[in-house]
């Protein structure tokens, strides 16, 4: 096993484990902490995919900004631990588990049908050194994707105004 494979399996198992923690944790605070861990492990996986810029954004935006927002709301609502109401194996859990397992089976089956063993793209040293860098990503964002980029800035503005309006007690 190469170092890359070892890292992949370490990150993959930790990601799935902490994602399970998000679902299984009783108090929302524990869910949020597991989610932060999931984001960090996923950032590691992104680095393995040569997506350095997106990995940094993942940590800054997701594990930083969005999770702080979540924690603020959890503390603002001062939720009591509701605990698990009703039977452990309720109908909704069985149905939800079956639906998730069915979807997973379909997805895995279709991924298996990808032709042959998909090799990663071979890149020359020049391309490999710039792949996923902020420079290359910025050239795409401000070139081909300029209009969507500006639309996203508008969307964020609308989200800010909307959040203020919705959360205000009296308008």
């Amino acid at each position: 096993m190469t170092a890359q494979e070892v890292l992949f399996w370490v990150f993959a198992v930790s990601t799935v484990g902490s994602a399970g923690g998000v679902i299984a944790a009783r108090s929302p605070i524990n869910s949020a902490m597991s989610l932060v861990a999931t984001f960090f492990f996923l950032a590691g996986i992104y680095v393995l995919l040569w997506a350095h810029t997106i990995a940094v954004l993942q940590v800054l935006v997701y594990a930083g900004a969005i999770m702080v927002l979540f924690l603020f709301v959890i503390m603002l609502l001062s939720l009591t631990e509701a605990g698990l109401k009703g039977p452990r194996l309720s109908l909704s859990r069985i149905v939800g588990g079956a639906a998730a397992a069915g979807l997973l089976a379909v997805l895995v089956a279709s991924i298996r049908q990808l032709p042959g063993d998909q090799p990663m793209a071979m890149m020359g040293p020049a391309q490999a050194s710039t792949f996923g860098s902020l420079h290359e990503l910025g050239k795409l964002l401000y070139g081909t994707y300029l209009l969507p980029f500006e639309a996203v800035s508008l969307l964020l503005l609308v989200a800010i105004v909307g959040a203020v309006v919705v959360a205000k007690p009296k308008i």
Partner: protein
Amino acid sequence: MVPAPNYLILAAILFCMGMFGVLVRRNALVVFMCIELMLNAANLTFLAFARMRGDLHGHVSAFFIIAVAAAEAAIGLAIVIAVFRSRGTVDIGDIRTLKH
């Protein structure tokens, strides 16, 4: 070199776990966190295919997903706060005004 299907299957597992959480959990905040998990699974798929094909357009899609997720979290949490103010609960089983 880790083959690409490994990344895709990891993303599929993550997405299904998020979906299971959305279907099963009753706390609106945890449901939101599970939605974030599903968005991250989509991101991982984009990045895996971008690495597989050796072009950067998948990275741009992941970038946009992160931005949209930030907007979604802001609006969604504002709605959760508004519901908590008027109902005193964030249990999605107790919010059934529209259900008749």
